[in-house]
């Protein structure tokens, strides 16, 4: 399964050479294609008619005021919303052309390919080492050396290795908040995913930890498709290639970050970016 993932990466690298520029209308080979996606919980409609392409090896920032459906959209991409018993949706989300809501889909495998980092770090009640090997073990990797190697490389990618290499057996709860979030990033990377979903990953962190996370993400952008939900428009401007603006459950517009921030097509977008509301 993991070797299949590695092959996916190679394919991604090839695809990265001809990335499209425009949302929804672009003919380029998108990693994730969202079409006419509606979603809600029980009686509440959260997302309306979202159509969006997410291109490989690019960082897409999703901005917008609270309650706009950003997180719901993100949690749809790895089917985490399906855990809620009253979740309902229509429309489609295709990952490499495969409908992730199809009944014959292995959901656990989708979640390994589409890794997620939460706003609040969630260290599982295990040691640091066990946290990192949790996903790979479930994916069927048993070989000690392979696991050790995964732990080391993913901790290095998350810029945490030097701080924790001598205390891998300690409970993950002992780490500071910023370290915990980087450990959670490393834990996702240990799955060797293709897509990274980041749900306001720095909202609870101090500026130094935020900088470390952003540095780590910057290093990773060439290898992963990244979707970053953020309330921090500055972060969106500096840490993404494309930006989508969500408002009241609808996607108002989406385009290259430089265009969205300098010359948006919609008045609501520029109002939000310049801080007139939200």
């Amino acid at each position: 399964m993991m070797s299949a993932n590695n092959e996916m990466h190679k394919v991604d690298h090839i695809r990265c050479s001809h990335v499209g520029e425009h949302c929804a209308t672009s003919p380029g080979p998108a990693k994730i294609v969202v079409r006419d996606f509606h979603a809600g919980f029980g009686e509440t409609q959260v997302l309306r008619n979202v159509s969006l392409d997410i291109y490989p090896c690019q960082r897409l920032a999703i901005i917008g005021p609270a309650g706009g459906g950003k997180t719901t959209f993100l949690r749809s991409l790895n089917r985490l919303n399906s855990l809620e018993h009253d979740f309902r949706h229509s429309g489609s989300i295709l990952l490499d052309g495969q409908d992730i809501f199809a009944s014959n889909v292995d959901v656990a495998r989708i979640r390994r390919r589409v890794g997620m980092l939460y706003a609040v770090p969630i260290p599982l009640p295990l040691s640091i080492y066990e946290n990192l090997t949790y996903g790979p073990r479930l994916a069927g990797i048993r070989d000690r050396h392979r696991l050790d190697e995964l732990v080391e490389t993913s901790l290095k990618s998350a810029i945490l290795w030097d701080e924790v290499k001598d205390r891998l057996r300690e409970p993950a709860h002992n780490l500071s908040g910023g370290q915990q979030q980087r450990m959670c990033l490393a834990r996702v990377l240990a799955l060797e995913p293709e897509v990274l979903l980041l749900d306001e990953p720095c909202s609870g962190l101090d500026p130094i930890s935020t900088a470390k996370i952003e540095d780590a993400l910057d290093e990773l952008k060439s290898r992963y498709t990244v979707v970053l939900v953020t309330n921090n428009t500055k972060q969106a401007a500096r840490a993404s290639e494309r930006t989508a603006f969500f408002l009241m459950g609808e996607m108002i517009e989406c385009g290259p970050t430089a265009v969205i921030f300098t010359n948006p097509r919609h008045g609501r977008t520029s109002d939000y970016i310049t801080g007139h509301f939200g």
Partner: protein
Amino acid sequence: MRASQGMPKRSPLGAWLDRKQDLFISSILLVVALSAISGLVVITAFIFKEGLPIMLQVGVGKFVSSSDWYPAEGHFGIFPMIMGSLAVTAGALVIGGVLGLGCAVVLTQFCPRWAVSILKPSIELLAGIPSVVYGFIGVVILVPMIRVHLGGPGLSVLASSIVLGIMMLPTVTSISVDALQAVPKAYRDGSIALGATHWQTTRMVILKASRSGLVAAMILGMGRAVGETMAVIMVAGNTLDVPDSILAPVRTLTSNIALEMGYAAGDHRKALFATGVVLFVIIMILNTIALTVSRRRSRRKSGA
């Protein structure tokens, strides 16, 4: 009175009364709390005062290790009863613990909400059934079943364990459910987002995170099993032998007291109190062990 009429400003008198009222209520609460504790102290003191002299007279070692219980001849050895209580409690813990924990996992992790709203109250309803009814059902249905299918007299360790296991279900289940529900939902999301299935998440994360609560559930269930008397008397057989198999009849410490209290006098009566002392000590030891385990686990979990 003026203070309670919703006036925005307090007179100095009103404020003084409020302070006094606080003091008054907190001292009443203190008295209530102390009287609850004093109940425990008085009962303990009484049991020890009545039971300890005869234990010392017989010899503590002989009292707990001898198998001769002939009150008329002055032989007081309760070793069979101690073994009986331990065997029955261990059996009940296996049956009630496994069933209760299983119920709790299903109810909290794998059940739609409407099913939980039916199943949880029905399990809790078990606590409302009088123990004599459990014993009666045990005698009428369980005991003959064991006698016919497994052999032996039917009145046995096994029968008592099953009856007690079912009796402790509501305790074990509802406390385990609370412990499992106390696990932050984020753990579930975090684990599932890493590609774990629901069952893998439950087994590797949720059960682990709630372990100290689950141990507490087992302790309290065990307490119920050790102390239960009526149902056990009815299905245990009450012979004075050390049980040599799960099909053998037994007498527990509690049954011994209940069965003989009616006609006991003098040293015999005191020996029954001494039985109570031993029961008391056993329960204390069990609780201490279990508490230490749960405390050590929770400390390791929080990583302090």
